[in-house]
């Protein structure tokens, strides 16, 4: 009797969660952020429903400030796997000219990401949205449910969250309510990388070290991905060998200097590294408990 490894058990749990949603929810969607966690989540979903095609569409909330390589990877992946991909842009935000440079990360993220997500969920009437968040990412997520209940206004109320026992999830909703479902809740960052390695999952090349044009701002290395990036006086992009541990809007995502060009090298670097992946995200530093606040407002 061979025992199951930790990755097998995590995989089985994630697949079980996705199947529960598909069996019980009327109109599910998978939020696809193009990052490594999304890649793992998509891979698990393909396994969960094989040989049937994915029984739900993917939704990407495009802030219009994503790395170009992310968009290329997104479109290539959808094409290769024959997936139904919905891309939503908050046109009101675009009309207002919202951008991370003039409005700051908080306003930009709220308008283009949080509001954009709510618009897309409302427009399509999705009652369940898969997200790739993990409990190990951040302290306030350690208590997040796998099935997180959101009000008709998409707000997260800690008091209304349901106890989750055994493998029993309550998917019942009152009119207007919806669920955010996190199949990767119990995965750690190392699990994600090991699984990508074990399964040979494709990820955006930005995760691998390469010479890229960057400027240094507030201690973070910001990649100059396109000509929209306003340079400060005297600032000049330098080519440095960098990679990204997390992917978001390019002006808000710090790179790290690295030589890791392969998966084993990334894992090796990660084991030695002393910086958590969320540090690359500028939004987490906007004041104490900021993730918790964002979550209550409807951000993942």
């Amino acid at each position: 009797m061979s025992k199951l490894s930790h990755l097998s058990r995590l995989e089985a749990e994630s697949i079980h969660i996705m199947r529960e949603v598909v069996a019980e929810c009327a109109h599910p969607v998978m939020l696809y952020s193009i990052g490594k966690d999304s890649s793992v989540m998509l891979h698990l979903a393909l396994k969960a429903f094989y040989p049937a095609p994915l029984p739900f569409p993917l939704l990407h909330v495009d802030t219009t400030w994503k790395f170009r390589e992310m968009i290329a990877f997104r479109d290539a992946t959808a094409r290769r796997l024959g997936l139904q991909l919905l891309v939503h842009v908050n046109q009101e935000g675009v009309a207002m000219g919202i951008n991370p440079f003039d409005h700051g990360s908080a306003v930009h993220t709220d308008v283009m990401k949080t509001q954009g997500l709510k618009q897309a969920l409302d427009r399509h009437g999705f009652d369940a949205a898969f997200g790739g968040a993990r409990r190990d990412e951040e302290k306030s997520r350690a208590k997040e449910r796998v099935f997180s209940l959101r009000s008709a206004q998409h707000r997260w109320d800690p008091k209304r969250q349901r106890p989750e026992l055994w493998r029993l999830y309550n998917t019942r909703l009152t009119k207007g309510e919806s669920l955010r479902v996190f199949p990767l809740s119990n995965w750690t960052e190392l699990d994600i990388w090991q699984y990508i390695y074990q399964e040979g999952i494709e990820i955006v090349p930005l995760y691998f070290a390469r010479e890229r044009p960057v400027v240094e701002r507030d201690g973070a290395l910001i990649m100059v991905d396109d000509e929209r990036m306003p340079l400060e006086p005297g600032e000049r992009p330098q080519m440095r060998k960098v990679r990204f541990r997390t992917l978001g809007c390019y002006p808000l995502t710090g790179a790290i200097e690295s030589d890791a060009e392969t998966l084993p090298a990334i894992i090796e670097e990660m084991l030695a590294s002393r910086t958590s992946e969320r540090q690359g995200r500028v939004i987490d530093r906007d004041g104490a408990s900021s993730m918790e606040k964002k979550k209550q407002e409807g951000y993942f």
Partner: protein
Amino acid sequence: MSAKPDPLPAELDAWLASQADKDLLRFITCGSVDDGKSTLIGRLLYESHVLFDDQLAALEQDSRRLGTQGGELDFALLVDGLAAEREQGITIDVAYRFFATEHRKFIVADTPGHEQYTRNMVTGASTAELAVILVDARKGVLTQTRRHSYLVSLLGIRRIVLAVNKMDLVDYSEQAFRSIEREYREFAAQIGLSDIVAIPLSALRGDNVIEAAGTMPWYRGPTLMAHLDVVPPPQRGAVRPFRMPVQWVNRPNSEFRGFAGLVAAGSVRVGDPVVALPSGRSSRVARIVCGSKDAAEALAGQSVTLVLEDEIDVSRGDMLAAAASPAAVSDLFEATIVWMSEEPMLPGRPYLLKCGTRMVSATVAPLKHKINVNTLEKLAARQLELNEIGVVNLSTDQPLAFDPYVDNRDTGGFILIDRISNGTVGAGLLHASLRRAQDLHWQTLDIDQTARAAQKNQRACVLWFTGLSGAGKSTIANLVEKRLFGLGRHTYLLDGDNVRHGLCRDLGFTDADRVENIRRVAEVARLMTDAGLIVLVSFISPFRAERALARSLLGPGEFFEIFVDTALAEAERRDPKGLYRKARAGQIRNFTGIDSPYEPPESPEIHLDTRALSSEEAAEAIIQHLRKAAVIDREWVFIP
């Protein structure tokens, strides 16, 4: 920063391969606010090097601002998450933490210990395979320690680590530790916990958490981390019969029809016979699809898709089980319920019940009792309030395939959902079906004799009194019925004279009519037995053949022939109804014993000699016999 970087493996590929074999162990930590639980978990995370520099920097900052350790690192701040609870200084929900050792990954359910948070502890314990119970060395085994241990035991956790914390505050005294350990073991044995490893430690100072402490040379056992790294994992249902609740039917085209689910117990191989429950239809496994590949075998804990050889009707909510040892199916259960809602649980109100992948409507009968989680006392109660635990009978509107919770959490645990608010309001453990038959498959879904009798707390049977007129049959039968009635049994007495006033009013006393009379009475007795009753038949029934016919209508052990034996002369002397006199006078024809034969039983179950026994003694003899024959002697026992 004092944290050492992890040693880098020389051969990364080899290391990655070894990581693929890592085991996963889920455990729960139980302790009250002051036991140092958050400090202990914070230290486990800190010492296992899963924290990064920026998190440590935040910890240093928080420790200066909010810490309780005079500016030194306050590990509790690592795990106290939500802003609201940080302000209150207590944790108010279940948090999940992650760390790893050489051989294992761990998921820790971190739950607060307040009485009002039974709900949280039960939630955390439901997925845990081991419990770390914290005790403050200065305070020893407290009420809350007992409560935590009871809840952990209730939820089926059998492996316990008793972490005696704050040893630094009792001068690392061996005596203090041993006395706490002894007291705990005594208590734990009472609630069925015997697999206990006690470790003296100081979470604050790190003694015996990762490194053996020089401060306690008298302790030669493992440190907490060393123990967690090697403690054998539980069986996880691997050796039990195969079970898989069907989650979803995968039917992308007419070529493929698979049943997706997570194997809840046992294993299954291609070719294995399986049965779908509750329908009872059987087939064999044709394919096991695991991801995009086919596998020869699926193990407990794996998510797979099974294709069967036959086109049998299976849908979400059904269970596929090993054909040789299928799960029980029932719609009437004994269960323990933990109530989790501010609104009390009301018997009689229908709730939605989700067990495995099946959702049914469930109604709870009046509570048997609730349990005081501090003293384990059973208390009478009409309803359950938030965080209360009670034992109930519950019925479902549709049959449910299940295993007792002690055998399998995934097929024996359930949640209750409020129909209006849609909230999860309760959790429960199925213990037993209240139907009697061991192998309750689809045949027994209909309410049958066993079920009806079980409901009445008895075994259905016929007590067939035979003997001459005037022997005392009716008197004795009457006494026996009174005794049974007094014992709470459900009976019916068919008396020859009474039946002849109605059912058999068209019959006379010819032999043919006597046979028909007995046939009718035997059929009625059979129907009443099927209704679950103990049927007393008091009839002369002079012919062996008719008594044999009556016996043949009933199952083995259900027919008790009671010969009320009196000499004809004695019966004739008593002649309570004056019938012998009339018969002798020729006023009655075909009277048994006078001008119609009586064939005495050759081997009756009970032979009563009325010359030696009074009617009361005869009735007592019958009751004793019924006790021996297990008709009434044993209290109803639930079938696990």
